[in-house]
């Protein structure tokens, strides 16, 4: 006679059932996360369907944004979004790299933790504070000093000059780019610092033992080792700069007419939505929802690339 397992007690059965139920609940919530992302995209596209059907490709190609006549060409906000984010990155990336280099190789040890913590805390300050600072403090400085100077000295130059001509208003893409860069510097530099700290000490020590300088260790050892994650961090910052609303809405000037000058008022997708949504008619809201969808797709691509690159580094660590 073969031995049989003792028959399952009522308690075992109840436990098994509870386990199954527990697992189902967990799975459902995990799927909910997926549904959220898809739902966000689809609901905005659905909300904007009437404008998309009406405008077609003109929505992306025309710069005629005139809600009164029901014309929605979103080229100006799309252009403004990209330009402000690029300005922000041009300033923030080198400075953030400098800060991360400073915090991991240059600064004396006792200074590293306090400065690192301070920068991480500052990354948590709400973006509206940056916007208010930009509006009340930076804009007057731009108006009185930087813009007249740029207009007089860079404005007359060929080609580049067109970007830096304009009346001293203070609001515009340059001001927004500067505010955005200050906002993302703590963010990018803390990602870079964290990533630099994952470089194995023996790699750096070997280089130092061969007589490499601090700069050579950072540029030739640390940076190649962490390259993909550094780019990932930069893209995370870019994603933030593209979608930032409040820091920009205060200082962009909110004008939907096209201008090549970085010194004149313009707008970005997020700022336009935040600014006009309250008073918008139904059709106009539909256009704003469609803009939101465009913003979502752009940031989704940027953030997805960022995550893939950050994953690369953690894989490298795991394989070691």
């Amino acid at each position, binding site marked *: 006679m073969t031995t049989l397992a003792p028959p399952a007690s009522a308690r075992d059965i109840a436990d098994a059932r509870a386990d199954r139920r527990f697992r189902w609940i967990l799975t459902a919530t995990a*799927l909910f*996360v997926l549904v959220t992302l898809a739902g966000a995209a689809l609901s905005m596209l659905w909300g904007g369907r009437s404008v998309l059907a009406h405008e077609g490709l003109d929505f992306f190609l025309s710069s005629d944004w005139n809600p009164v006549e029901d014309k929605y060409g979103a080229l100006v906000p799309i252009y403004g979004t990209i330009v402000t984010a690029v300005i922000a990155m041009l300033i923030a990336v080198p400075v953030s790299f400098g*800060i991360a280099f*400073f915090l991991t190789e240059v600064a004396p040890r006792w200074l590293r933790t306090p400065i690192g913590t301070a920068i991480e805390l500052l990354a948590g300050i709400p973006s509206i504070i940056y916007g208010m*600072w930009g509006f009340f403090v930076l804009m007057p400085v731009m108006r009185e000093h930087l813009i007249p100077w740029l207009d007089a000295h860079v404005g007359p130059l060929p080609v580049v000059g067109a970007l830096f001509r304009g009346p001293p208003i203070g609001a515009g893409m340059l001001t927004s780019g500067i505010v955005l860069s*200050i906002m993302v510097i703590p963010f990018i530099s803390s990602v870079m610092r964290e990533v630099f700290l994952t470089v194995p000490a023996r790699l750096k020590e070997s280089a130092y033992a061969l007589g490499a300088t601090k700069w050579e260790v950072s540029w030739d050892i640390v940076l190649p080792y962490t390259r993909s994650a550094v780019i990932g961090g930069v893209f995370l910052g870019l994603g933030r700069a593209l979608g*930032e609303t409040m820091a920009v809405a205060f200082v962009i000037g909110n004008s939907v007419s096209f201008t090549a000058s970085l010194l004149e008022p313009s707008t970005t997708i997020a700022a336009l939505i935040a600014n006009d949504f309250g008073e918008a008619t139904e059709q106009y809201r539909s256009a704003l929802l469609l803009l939101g969808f465009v913003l979502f797709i752009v940031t989704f691509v940027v953030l997805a690339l960022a995550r893939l690159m950050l994953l690369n580094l953690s894989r490298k660590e795991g394989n070691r």
Partner: protein
Amino acid sequence: MSASTSLYRRRRLVNAVAIVLACAAALFGLAFLAWILWTLLSKGLANLNLALFTQDQPPPLEEGGLRNAIVGSLMMCGMGVLIGTPLGIAAGTWLAEVGNNRRLGTVVRFVNDILLSAPSIVLGLFVYAAFVMQTGGNFSAIGGALALAFIVLPVVVRTTDEMLRLVPVQMREAALSLGVPQWKVTMQVLYRSALPGIVTGILLALARISGETAPLLFTAFGNEFFSLDPTGAMSAVPLVMYKFAGSGYENWERLAWAGALLVTLFVLAISLGARAILLRNKPAHD
């Protein structure tokens, strides 16, 4: 000989220049951030007073406070955390305990990471299109709380996932080998051990939503009057700041700075608290 000396000299020079530039970058970054904090303190501190908490937001050129906005902020942030946290903990548990090595797990983790850094304005529009428009287009505090909950969700998922994966496998094995069902292992063993980390995550999420403005514009909308009705429009401190800051009315601007300082202090206090919890409980795991 001379070639190698000049190479050596050049390397030393490059290094010195790089170090000077790095120090300059650090100073540049810190100077701007200090400038912002200084502005905040110098403009906000003088306007912090008791009336801020006892009076509602005033019409232009009259005295008042931010009571309706503070209450609205607390209510919506509280509701947002209450909605987002259980969902986030459950999804994070699934990631760490069930889906860890599955393909679906990788996908969920990836999507969650994207949600984590998605622009908040997009989540606000999502709730507007999926909730506010479907309920007849009337703005409500519930809508605001939902938008905030979608910001809380990915933060809590991420920290729960990370904290549960830090719990040693031996603890699960020990509990399971005693015949404890899995849900009990999770609830009574794993959560207990991961609790400080999860609480830190919830606090960080709270810090993040307490300064959010953009998603509330399309959902809670703002309200000039004191209101406790979750089905109606409700005010929040950042919404009032947005409205008041550029208004040109001197008393409105003073209130905006007071609100800015209040929100920032709240956020910094919570982040510091979260860090303290994490630091205090760290040795227990190692």
